[in-house]
């Protein structure tokens, strides 16, 4: 069952680094050449916008279109971004040469200094820096891990699977109450699957719900893998889910809140997001299933009035937007689901099931749904 990368980690990394480095140098040389020949220096950056996002119906994922924006130095709105792109390119090259990785926050500090002759800082805050790094990824066609940048850990895994992380064997059945934190980079050269007996993956929205399942040893009783992504799952968690799904053939069930945000998280896991559309091929899980919470559960589970949280204007707006997503629009089940949410006028969190019984969700709700194959996909 376990698949292990053919290349040894260090050899694979070196080859990857060489390619990335070449891409960066090529970009810089183009800019310099243009400058010296009196042409405006520009960097072409594929547009990470909604209009440049294409819904690939056949693959069931969101993909980035061909539209690109030219980032110009001699444009008042882009001059600073252009400069920042150059700074980060230079930082990445330094990282590759030093064979080190940095966090997003680390990159912010790496590029941060005062512009010569002024009091202006190169980056106002980390958000500015993060945006530039995403631009750089799409611009030179290298992924974040290829740029040797990682995000902070924000996801947990536990269950019937054994991994090898940078040479260390991790048996996810023996992770205590905290679980194993999913790293930001989970590419095969970092993490390999050694052994897996689980039959499916249950992904829950947040840590509190995950704790409930872990404490009740749900993964043991139902022979599965239990993950959480702290709200909208970061790239590392999504990539891990995708690998579990693709390489180990495990179905992925999602247990999320019954609100537009929960629906959106499901959409991102399943089809990908607009801002990371270029990564959908690697991240999206088109056959991921939405287990709950469903709008019908209020009646089906006989919940009390107390669990209702009224929809605000923003929720309503968001729900309507989501209903209009092409993949949801063509799906009658989802149209009914969102319609149900809007007509009921309230949302429900996974935790609302606790009003029935502390372990209702792990002992009754999920097993019943799985058994009845009652989900949306």
């Amino acid at each position, binding site marked *: 069952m376990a698949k292990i990368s053919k290349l040894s980690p260090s050899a694979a990394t070196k080859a990857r680094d060489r390619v990335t480095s070449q891409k960066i140098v090529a970009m810089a040389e183009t800019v*310099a050449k243009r400058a010296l020949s009196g042409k405006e220096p520009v960097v072409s950056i594929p547009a990470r916008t909604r209009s440049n996002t294409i819904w690939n119906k056949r693959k069931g994922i969101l993909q980035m279109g061909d539209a690109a924006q030219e980032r110009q130095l001699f444009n008042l709105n882009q001059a600073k971004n252009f400069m920042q792109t150059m700074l980060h390119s230079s930082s990445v*090259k330094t990282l590759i040469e030093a064979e080190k990785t940095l966090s997003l926050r680390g990159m912010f500090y790496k590029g941060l200094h005062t*512009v010569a002759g002024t009091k202006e800082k190169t980056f106002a805050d980390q958000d500015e820096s993060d945006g530039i790094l995403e631009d750089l990824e799409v611009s030179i066609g290298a992924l974040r891990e290829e740029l040797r940048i990682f995000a902070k850990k924000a996801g947990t895994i536990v269950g019937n699977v054994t991994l090898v992380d940078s040479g260390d064997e991790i048996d996810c059945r023996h992770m205590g109450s905290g679980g194993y934190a999913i790293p930001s980079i989970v590419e095969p050269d970092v993490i390999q699957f050694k052994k897996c007996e689980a039959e499916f993956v249950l992904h829950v929205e947040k840590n509190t719900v995950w704790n409930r399942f872990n404490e009740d040893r749900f993964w043991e009783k139902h022979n599965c893998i239990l993950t959480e992504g702290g709200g909208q799952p970061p790239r590392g968690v999504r990539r891990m889910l995708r690998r579990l799904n693709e390489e180990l053939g495990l179905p992925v069930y999602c247990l999320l809140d019954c609100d537009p945000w929960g629906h959106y998280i499901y959409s991102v896991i399943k089809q990908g997001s607009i801002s990371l559309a270029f990564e959908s091929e690697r991240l999206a899980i088109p056959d991921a299933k939405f287990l709950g919470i469903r709008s019908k559960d209020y009646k089906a589970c006989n919940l009390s009035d107390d669990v209702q949280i009224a929809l605000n204007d923003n929720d309503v707006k968001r729900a309507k937007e989501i209903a209009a997503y092409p993949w949801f629009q063509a799906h009658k089940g989802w149209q009914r689901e969102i319609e149900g949410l809007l007509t009921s006028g309230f949302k429900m969190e996974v935790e609302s099931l606790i009003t029935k019984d502390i372990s209702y969700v792990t002992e009754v709700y999920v097993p019943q749904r799985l058994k009845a194959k009652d989900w949306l996909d």
Partner: protein
Amino acid sequence: MSGTEAVVMESSKRKSAQDHPQIAGTKPKRSRGATADEMADRQRDISVSEFFAKNRHLLGFDNPRKALLTTVKEAVDNCLDACEEGAILPELSVIIEDLQPDRPASAKSSRYRVTVVDNGPGIVRKQVENIFGRLLYGSKFHRLKMSRGQQGIGISAAGMYGLITTGRPMVIHTKPGATKAAHHIELAMNTKTNRAEVTLDKETTDFPPKRFRSLTAGTRSLAGESGGFLDAAVYRHGTCVSIELEGRYQRGRGSVDEFLELTAIANPHARIVFVPPSRVNDDDSDTPILAKVEAGAAVVAAVTTETQGVTVFPRAVQELPPEAKEIQPHPRGIELGTLLQMLKDFEASDHGTLFNFLRERFCRVSAATAGSLCEKVGLSSRRKVSDLDPSVTEKLFDALQNAKLAPPPTDCLVPIGVRQLLAGMLKGVRAEFYAASTREPAVYRGRPFQIEAAIAFGGELPGDETARVIRFANRVPLLFQQSACSSFKAVVETSWRNYNLQQPRGSLPIGPLVIMIHVASVWVPFTSESKEAIADYDEIRKEMRLALMECGRKLGTYLNKRQQMQRQGERRDIFERYIGEVSKALHDIAGVDTKKVHDALLKQARAHTAAADQSLDVDGKVVQEQESPDEEGIVVVQSAMPPSIERPTKRTPAPATLRPAGTADVKKPRKSADRDGPSLF
């Protein structure tokens, strides 16, 4: 003024009321009412002078402060008119002496002697009494010609006011020619007879009067220079009028100072020296409205200067305005009463036919038109005017009103002119941007008129106050009743927001702005005899608005351009700031030559922000005219620009031709500054 000549008032109607008790004893039944005979005894002519003596406010003598101003104003108007008619570049000295310098501080008014000296053609001896001693005597009332005064009331009314308040006669020195003798005449006006009584009449050699030259430290200093103050070589002929009056000298709005400042703006061809009284009223906290420069300070153009209290408004242009032509009235502009009067006047003439009347007494009536007009009223063209009966006259009036006629000729109008307007504004207002425009002549009620407007923006003008409107009619400043004036309404109606200015709804724009409006006409329609506001004719207001819009557009364009320059400067700043970082990063990544890339990028940045250079490449000139032909009629003073625009210079190596701002203000002797202002135009 129509009808003032015919004023008859029963002024002494109640005069006998005190006598009644005595009469009452003897004839109780007739205590009320008088017989027609008795009434007839009391009814008599009232002289115009007498009427105005009692209604002095109608002429602008409402209070001591305004009386002083009006006196100066009437004298100055007369002097300028006289000089221009005599084709002489006007040279005026206005001297106000305080005759009660040791009055208590609480005194509301004081006695002043106002003296105005000009270098005009002077006055023939026998005309002196008529000109200065009679109301409604003058050369200007009976003709349609553009001039400052119109009715011939001004100076004699001032003399009369002086006589009433101080009992002192008017003193006149006049020298009608360089080789002719000067006369010293003193006259007091008899209000009953509307005639002047001469109290002193002698020949004198003292012209211009020498005693003024040593009046104050300022006059002594000025008189030391050639042509500085009352130089006999300049005043080879002319007139000097002195009037003593009860008045009040105070600076600020509506003051003598403001009047002269504005007069100097509208009359850039005149040189005016003003010697104010030694003592101003104690509660005077107002500061002069328009800027003055300390004499001797660096000046670039002909600007107003002050030497130890004496203000000199220099001559900013060297040529006289062209002479205004006199025209006959246009048929469209007359009223029935006027027509009747004109017909009566014409009866006396020996060729008094209707045809000749129409041809000679109107403008724009050709022989053919005159013939067809005669036909229209059903009369032969040879019919004597004296034979017309009233019904025909009325018919004739209608025919005249409806006749298809060319508008009146406009060569009778003499606008100040764009160049002169700019020179005048430049002299009196310290601003950054000046624009002026002169409209084509237009017609209201058959009378031709022409509107001019000018604006000054920025510089030392206060930025957070409403704009100041300065108004002129035939080059005479209008100081009062601003909001009743057509020009004020035109300013309010103009949408200044279109030109990047703030303007609250229904009011003047806000900003560092002076707006000037000038109405030139053979007959300026004032709302009252004191000539303070222009009546609100649609035609006039429309022209005013169009003139203001022209200036506004120029200002708007300029402000846009200035903003663009500022933006470009900022842009360059930003580009150049990042170029260093970019070229260093490129070096770190690809090993390219940092300096080469830097220079190449800098070159591109400069090209991208070329507009910023426009402000930088000033050839040391402080005042520079825009060259493109559609921007005529504006002047920009670079040194008065806000400093933010000049900021980019700090980061840019100065081109060899660029001199630091201010060096152009080389110290020049003040006199030559009058003449060699920079070539503005």
